């Protein structure tokens, strides 16, 4: 199998196999999670199949034409960056889905859960391998939607629904900004194809000197920041923790929130090397890093701490990708990429531990825990290694990338000169201090100290291997990457960095590299971190007080206000627009028809009726028309429902008769059948309501209605006269094309049918899809009403 096929399959197999998951569930019952894990593993293997080519310095690129006229194709591009993300997504996917077998209760709706996880994984893989910005956008929004469904997995909990809505509103809206950015980018560069821009220096030069450069950058950055919970957009991530814990581990720590980081890395070669890039990306990054790290202190929910720590850690990565100068476009790229990989390992591991602890103790409140080290020794060791890696303790992988972060900060600071040479490293250390403090809090709060006398179940123990093994595997990676950094560096980091910097990269990362500035900064971090930890609860208390006193200094305050307002305004609007009686809607439609006709008629001031009218109507048609008029009058005037309905259907049959005279047998047949069926349905429904019109119509209303009906009828009459006399559209009729081509092109004599199923088959597909939706809609209406009763 060639690499392109492998990647295409890796993206689409999860979708296809998730589609048949409900059928498989009938066979496997509650073991369905293992099937999902197997699917994820298959994607992992397929990504691995394509990997060697990338590691040896190549790229994979191929496209299938989709909308060639608009430059939009289904195309996949793989370089080191995509492959590394491919490994993270599918690898963590395998781990999470296996873990879920132990975590999710058998009573849950498992097919829905695993199906959405697989859909998510497929969308994520599709996004990282997209070569086309439009395709990237589609997969990007698909990840937002699947994330929405997974956060709201427990549909009956108001907080889940709140969190899900919040995440969808923020990330999907950010995605729209990104789309706008891509469109501006297309306007400047003339292409949607990412590799084309990457490989053409001239295009990038045009972009850099273009006046819309900053706008493009800002628009795309808003997309990335909203997805990765950076800057003011961070507020959705803490609420997303309402999702089942494996979902949080997968989407909201290791993969989906990294989509924004991926986007930043992907456009790094296009936009970096400019001041705007540094100030925007690094500026927002540093700000978020400090704020989120600081706010983590206040959290009492384990997952809350992890959420804020995720925001802060993502901000590290963002900051490092932002380090750029005109001569040195990629100062922090290697460090950022390495930290990205390490964060995926230790954060996923910590989330799994949080899931285990919550599963065993039935609470996530860290204030109610303590002293669990004796009862859960293995979990304790796993959690400690994960948290220490996050804190940056040697010899774990977190230490290495933290050192690189400090190194890059020092370099960036010194390149910029005073005062940045002090400021940037100092802020970096401060971020590290916060990280250190809350990492220690996780270990101390859950496992060390004294076991609280009440609030915890009596017997707490390590979970089964199903839940432990994935976490242990991740811990193995943490230690391995820390002790032998050359494995990840050679296989993932170097190809990725070459992909971003567009040149060969060779890195040497060692545990010990002498007494350097970063080492000094690490030591300072540890000392300050321990000092901060001694004041941990005091800081948290101060934050609580501050929050109670100034509730308006918070993004959430404005988000809630905006959403509440929007709800109020829209409900008022729709109440006014939809008062209920159908007559009101009809009136609006008819008045609109009248205006639409009246404006051009008055403006053009032409004679409405052609002068040489040619009415040559055979007698039998006139008779039919007379009957039709009588039937219509009957429908309008008969005082009871049943005769009125029969009048209407009589009118319908007369129309069918007319179709026969006009030589349209298909139409006539359809008309008769539809008329029959709708009459039956009408009659069935009507017997259940009172048999007399109760409404009393006043004379004024009657006159008004008559006037409107007469006007609309005359308009239709005038339009039809003009159309049939061939006056209004001076165009040739289309029918001769179909008459000539239906046999040679589609092999059918019945033109109507050939049009329906072949020439305009796409329309028909849409129509039958609408019919299906309508059927489901009716079903839901009826069901929801009987639920209310």
């Amino acid at each position, binding site marked *: 199998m060639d690499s392109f096929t492998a990647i295409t399959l890796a993206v689409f197999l999860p979708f296809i196999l998730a589609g048949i998951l409900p059928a498989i569930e009938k066979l496997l019952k509650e073991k369905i999670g293992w099937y999902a894990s197997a699917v994820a593993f298959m994607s992992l293997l397929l990504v691995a199949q394509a990997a060697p080519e990338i590691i040896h310095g190549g790229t994979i690129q191929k496209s299938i034409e989709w909308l060639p006229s608009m430059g939009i194709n289904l195309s996949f591009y793989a370089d080191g960056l995509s492959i590394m993300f491919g490994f993270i997504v599918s690898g963590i996917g395998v781990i999470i889905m296996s873990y879920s077998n132990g975590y999710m209760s058998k009573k849950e709706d498992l097919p829905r859960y695993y199906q959405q996880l697989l859909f998510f994984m497929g969308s994520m893989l599709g996004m990282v391998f997209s070569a086309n910005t439009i395709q990237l956008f589609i997969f990007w929004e698909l990840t937002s939607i699947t994330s929405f469904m997974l956060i709201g997995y427990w549909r009956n909990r108001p907080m889940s629904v709140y969190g899900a809505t919040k995440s969808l509103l923020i990330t999907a809206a950010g995605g729209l900004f990104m789309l706008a950015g891509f469109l501006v980018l297309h306007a400047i560069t003339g292409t949607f194809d990412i590799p084309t821009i990457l490989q053409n220096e001239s295009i990038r030069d045009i972009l850099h000197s273009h006046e819309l450069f900053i706008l493009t950058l800002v628009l795309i950055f808003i997309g990335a920041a909203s997805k990765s919970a950076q800057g003011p957009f961070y507020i959705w991530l803490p609420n997303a923790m309402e999702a089942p814990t494996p979902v949080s581990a997968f989407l909201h720590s290791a993969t989906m929130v990294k989509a924004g980081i991926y986007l930043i890395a992907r456009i790094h070669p296009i936009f970096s090397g400019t001041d705007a890039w540094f100030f925007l990306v690094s500026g927002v990054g540093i700000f978020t890093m400090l704020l989120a790290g600081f706010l983590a202190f206040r959290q009492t929910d384990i997952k809350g701490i992890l959420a804020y720590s995720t925001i802060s850690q993502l901000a590290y990565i963002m900051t490092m990708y932002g380090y750029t100068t005109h001569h040195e476009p990629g100062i922090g790229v290697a460090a950022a990429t390495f930290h990205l990989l390490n964060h995926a390992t230790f954060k996923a591991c910590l989330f799994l531990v949080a899931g285990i602890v919550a599963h065993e103790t039935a609470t996530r409140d860290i204030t109610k825990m303590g002293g669990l080290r004796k009862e859960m020794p293995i979990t304790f060791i796993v959690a400690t290694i994960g948290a220490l890696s996050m804190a940056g303790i040697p010899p774990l992988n977190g230490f290495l990338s933290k050192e690189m972060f400090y190194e890059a900060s020092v370099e960036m600071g010194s390149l910029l000169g005073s005062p940045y040479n002090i400021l940037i490293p100092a802020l970096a250390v401060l971020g590290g201090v916060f990280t250190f403090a809350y990492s220690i809090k996780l270990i101390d709060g859950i496992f060390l100290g004294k076991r609280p006398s009440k609030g915890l179940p009596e017997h707490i123990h390590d979970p089964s291997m199903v839940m432990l093994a994935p976490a242990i595997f991740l811990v193995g990676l943490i230690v391995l990457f820390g002790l032998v950094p050359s494995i990840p560096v050679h296989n993932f980091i170097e190809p990725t960095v070459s992909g971003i910097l567009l040149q060969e990269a060779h890195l040497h990362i060692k545990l010990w590299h002498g007494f350097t500035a970063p080492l000094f900064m690490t030591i300072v971090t540890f000392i300050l971190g321990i000092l901060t930890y001694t004041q941990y609860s005091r800081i948290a208390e101060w934050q609580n007080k501050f929050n109670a006193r100034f509730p308006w200094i918070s993004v959430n305050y404005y988000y809630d206000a905006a959403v509440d307002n929007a709800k109020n305004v829209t409900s008022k609007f729709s109440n006014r627009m939809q008062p209920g009686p159908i007559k009101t809607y009809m009136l609006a439609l008819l008045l609109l028809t009248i205006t639409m006709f009246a404006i051009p008629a008055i403006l053009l001031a032409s004679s409405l009726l052609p002068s040489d009218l040619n009415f040559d109507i055979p007698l039998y048609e006139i008779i039919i028309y007379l009957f039709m008029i009588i039937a219509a009058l009957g429908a309008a005037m008969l005082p009871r429902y049943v005769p009125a309905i029969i009048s209407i259907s009589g009118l319908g049959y007369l129309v069918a008769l007319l179709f026969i005279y006009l030589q349209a*047998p*298909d139409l006539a*047949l*359809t008309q008769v*059948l*539809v008329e*029959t*069926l709708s009459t*039956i*349905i009408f009659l*069935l*429904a009507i017997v259940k309501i009172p048999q007399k019109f109760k409404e009393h119509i006043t004379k004024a209303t009657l006159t008004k209605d008559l006037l409107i009906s007469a006007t609309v009828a005359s308009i239709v009459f005038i339009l039809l006269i003009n159309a049939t006399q061939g006056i209004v559209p001076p165009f040739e009729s289309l029918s001769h094309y179909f008459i000539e081509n239906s046999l040679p092109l*589609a*092999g*059918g*004599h*019945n033109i*109507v*049918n*050939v049009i*329906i*199923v*072949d020439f305009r*088959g*796409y329309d*028909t*597909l849409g129509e*039958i*899809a609408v*019919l*299906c939706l*309508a*059927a489901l809609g*009716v*079903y839901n209406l*009826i069901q929801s*009403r*009987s639920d209310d009763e």
Partner: protein
Amino acid sequence: MTTLITKTITKICLPLVILFSISLLLAGHNNPGGGFIGGVMFASVIALTYVVYGLDYIKSFFDPDWGNWFGFGLLLASVTAFAAIAFSHNFFRSAVEFIHLPFFGEVELVSAGLFDIGVYFVVIGGLLFIFKNVGDDR
């Protein structure tokens, strides 16, 4: 509406109409007919049976899930549309083949016919799904 006369007529009509609807479906490509008309005809006669004999009585021995019918139809129609891509043609490209069968003579096989069968099932499923739900509603 449940007089002896309607009951008897319905009994006689039911198989005839179903056969006629199938013939409309198959003849559609060259003669008046097609999936939509055939489907509505099928749906009408089943609806008539429901009305004449009562929904509950019919359901006691004949109660298909019409939801599956339109699901299947939509799937069939979409698969026909996408199948062309598998043979590296455009989306929705149709194919025509003439074959000789004993007794039938020359028979025309059209991929659009499969699509029409999809339409047929969607129309039957959709209409009767609605019909049964409205009828079931108290």
